[in-house]
């Protein structure tokens, strides 16, 4: 099978408009004859559900939480990028496009990224019209800030809760459609299988998480908006429930997985405090606008930070990257922190932390101004650590935060399975090997509001307008598979809990497929993960039964999938003999320790095809071409 990205012809800036015109349309009165299933109700899912229902399609949404409003998009703090150029500082669609391609270390599709930059301006309009309370200036117009490695102010924000406000906006639009009956919302439901009929995605098998009942839901198309799979690392900034099950099930049914090893490690998280820890908390990247990152110049310096004089502090980001300083992209900031700690300059009890200091900002702007800007973040830090960041510097350490990889999709956001779409973080498409700050919200909403509603019509227009049956043999078979699998998990009755396996998997992934990767480490990791998976299926202990609310059973299914997905990530990392963005292979670095890309051999999207249980997956390559942005080594010096 050859990969067809379906990128339209023509000049870059006209591709999307031309494509929209060429897409087939569904007659308004026929739209109600098509059913669309949307799994996941975060920014991408909720916005897609609302927009498709507004067009007239019948939509069914599924989320494992008790309400669509709780999807983890809600936790995004910093902001959303848009090429509005409201600040007159030279921003443009082209510059946003350029920054995103460069920030992604030249591993994203130019055409997709350009479309993203184009629709970014519509997103802000849409959200404001929905009543999203963005930050404003005294003149009444929208405020912007500069964010994560951008040299223009193009980030729109709502205090430190931008994700929340955008999600609630999308949720409100979706609610409106639930009210009209166009969207049917299934909460506390988890998709456990994709159903294929005659080679097309025709529905899902879902478990009602309250009663434990298995349900068959059919549709003309299925859209996965289930977010990233970063929880394979156990300790992450993801929500505890975030999982890769939906996309992994789809992958096993034929959807290729794109760039699985591309993981984003966020530089400013609160460090781990003990082995009881269940998650890591992110401190918004905006803190780097005013905070200065440093470590002591002396190794294993045990003094309190206040006692370390200025000349004995190493503001290493400012030293190594004088022009971007503390605002270098996330992958670079994270790696630098790890590098410092690896060399023995780390601080805190675990020595796995660096300082983020606001002393100078407080001196320059006054405590009040700092409080107004970051008050809620400082409070959060204090709650978690019990320390006051106004008087002593914060301690931060990188943590897994986002996965750039995901289901491979073409320009229409369709996976390699006809009728199966992936939007938002669940797909691989727009961020290349590293995502820029404030771009995740942009992509989720772009896909849901402005891309999928056009492209899905092109597929549905050629589909038969009769309902898809949900009791065909394919559905029955899929349902049986799901039930068997649940029973299998319950019947092992071993000794170790699913949390223990998850934690073990996380440590393994972090060690072998984390911030620094090597061929030997990855090979070893692959063997370890295989062994762990085997043990899991023999020694797992899941309490309770299937026909009840059983949180351990839910989690067991997710961890079982992570155990397979993790292996694929390592294979992908091992295959990619270069360093780029969030993927850092220690063998491939410049003399200064920067990521060394190999554009000649690896300028492609690695799309993996599932070949069966315990079979090596087959690699397909989608070559990336850069007509507009020239491949250069990223430099933030």
């Amino acid at each position, binding site marked *: 099978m050859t990969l067809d990205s379906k990128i339209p012809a023509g000049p870059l800036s006209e591709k999307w408009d031309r494509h929209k015109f060429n897409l087939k349309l569904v007659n308004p009165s026929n739209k109600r004859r098509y059913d669309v299933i949307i799994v996941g109700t975060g920014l991408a899912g909720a*916005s897609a559900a609302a927009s498709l229902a507004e067009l007239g399609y019948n939509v069914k949404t599924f989320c494992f939480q*008790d309400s669509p409003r709780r999807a983890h998009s809600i936790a995004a703090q910093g902001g959303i990028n848009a090429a509005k150029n409201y600040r007159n500082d030279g921003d443009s669609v082209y510059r946003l496009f350029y920054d995103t391609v460069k920030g992604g270390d030249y591993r994203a599709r130019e055409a997709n990224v350009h479309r993203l930059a184009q629709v970014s301006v519509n997103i802000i309009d849409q959200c404001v019209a929905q009543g999203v*309370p963005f930050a404003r200036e005294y003149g009444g117009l929208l405020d912007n800030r500069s964010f994560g490695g951008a040299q223009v102010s193009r980030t729109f924000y709502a205090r430190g809760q931008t994700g929340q406000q955008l999600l609630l906006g999308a949720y409100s639009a979706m609610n*409106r459609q639930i009210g009209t009956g166009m969207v049917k919302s299934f909460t506390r439901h988890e998709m456990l299988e994709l159903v294929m009929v005659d080679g097309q995605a025709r529905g899902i098998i879902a478990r009602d998480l309250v009663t434990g009942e298995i349900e068959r839901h059919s549709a003309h198309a299925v859209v996965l908006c289930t977010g990233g799979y970063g929880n394979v690392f156990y300790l992450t900034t993801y929500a*505890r429930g975030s999982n890769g099950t939906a996309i992994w099930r789809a992958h096993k049914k034929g959807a290729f997985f794109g760039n699985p090893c591309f993981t984003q490690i966020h530089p400013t998280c609160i460090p781990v405090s003990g082995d009881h820890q269940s998650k890591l908390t992110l401190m918004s990247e905006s803190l780097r606008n005013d905070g200065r990152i440093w470590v002591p110049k002396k190794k294993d310096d045990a003094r309190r930070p206040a006692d370390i004089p200025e000349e004995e502090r190493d503001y290493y980001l400012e030293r190594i990257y004088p022009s971007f300083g503390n605002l270098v992209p996330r992958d670079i900031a994270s790696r630098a922190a790890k590098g410092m700690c690896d060399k023995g300059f780390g601080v805190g009890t675990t020595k796995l932390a660096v300082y983020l200091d606001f002393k100078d900002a407080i001196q320059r702007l006054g405590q009040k101004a700092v409080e107004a800007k970051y008050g809620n973040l400082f409070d959060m830090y204090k709650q978690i650590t019990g320390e006051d960041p106004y008087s002593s510097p914060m301690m931060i350490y990188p943590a897994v935060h986002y996965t750039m990889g995901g289901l491979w999709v073409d320009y229409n956001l369709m996976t390699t399975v006809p009728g199966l779409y992936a939007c938002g973080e669940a797909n691989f498409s727009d961020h290349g090997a590293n995502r820029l700050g404030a771009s995740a919200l942009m992509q989720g909403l772009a896909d849901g509001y402005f891309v999928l509603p056009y492209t899905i019509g092109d597929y549905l227009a050629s589909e038969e307008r009769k309902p898809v049956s949900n009791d065909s043999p394919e559905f029955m078979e899929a349902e049986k598979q799901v039930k068997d699998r649940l029973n299998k998990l319950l019947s092992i009755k071993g000794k170790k809990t699913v949390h223990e396996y998850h934690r073990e998997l996380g440590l393994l992934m972090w060690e072998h497929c984390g911030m620094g990767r090597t061929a030997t480490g990855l090979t070893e990791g692959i063997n370890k993960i295989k062994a762990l998976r085997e043990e899991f299926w023999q020694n797992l202990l899941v309490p309770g039964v299937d026909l*009840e*609310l059983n949180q351990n059973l839910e989690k067991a299914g997710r961890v079982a999938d992570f155990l397979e997905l993790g292996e694929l990530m390592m294979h992908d990392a091992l295959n990619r003999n270069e360093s780029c963005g969030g993927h850092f292979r220690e063998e491939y670095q410049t003399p200064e320790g920067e990521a060394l890309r190999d554009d000649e051999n690896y300028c492609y999207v690695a799309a993996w095809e599932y070949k069966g249980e315990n079979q090596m997956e087959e690699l397909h390559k989608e070559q990336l071409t850069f007509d507009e942005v020239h491949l250069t080594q990223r430099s933030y010096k």
Partner: protein
Amino acid sequence: MSGNMNITLKVWRQKNKSDAGRFETYQAKHISPDMSFLEMMDVMNEQLIKDGKDPVAFDHDCREGICGMCSMYINGRAHGPNKGVTTCQLHMRSFKSGDTIVVEPWRASAFPVLKDLIVDRAAFDRIQQAGGFVGINTGSAPDANSIPIQKHLAEEAFNAAACIGCGACVAACKNSSAMLFMSAKVSQYALLPQGQPERKLRVLNMMKAHEEAGFGACTNTEACEAECPKGISVTNIARLNRDFVAASFTGE
């Protein structure tokens, strides 16, 4: 494990919606003061599983105080003794070793218990579906800066919009009223120009959904504001009262 606190927990156990439910007492041992309350529950649950017992079911997701999923009534307070935090942000350093902690689900007829500490908050969604939106379709929006909005109004709208829908207001209210929750959404839109066209219809429809769900009436005890992890103000309820009356007699 990693700490030296020992805690006695008196936890509500209920198999499902139709079960009568009862309190059970458990010991959580070797608890670190740095653990969050939910991490302490994790530790206890792991022990229960190993002992062949059914672990305590509780809602949780983001564990950073924003998703609104966690919902425990701890020692007679929604989200526990600290102000301005959700259960997941409550740390064990707020308790002493040897303490007995009573943990209950939210109590309201509109929030039936599904299992143990998990309640069904679908009534909140229904209130939002009844009118918690601005009725515009995707793609029809004018330029974002075409309507300037006074900074203080935008800020106040944000303060109301910061609601995470956790239900602590209902849990804390002696009447299980959802007025604070509802008024936060009503206020957000009432303060913004985008919310004006549907202002009256919205408040009428949302109020109707509130009544149908079986929430109580507001007695202005202001317990909701005191327990709200996001500090939503009861001023919003006053605004809702005003808007509701105006809409009742002048609306469509």
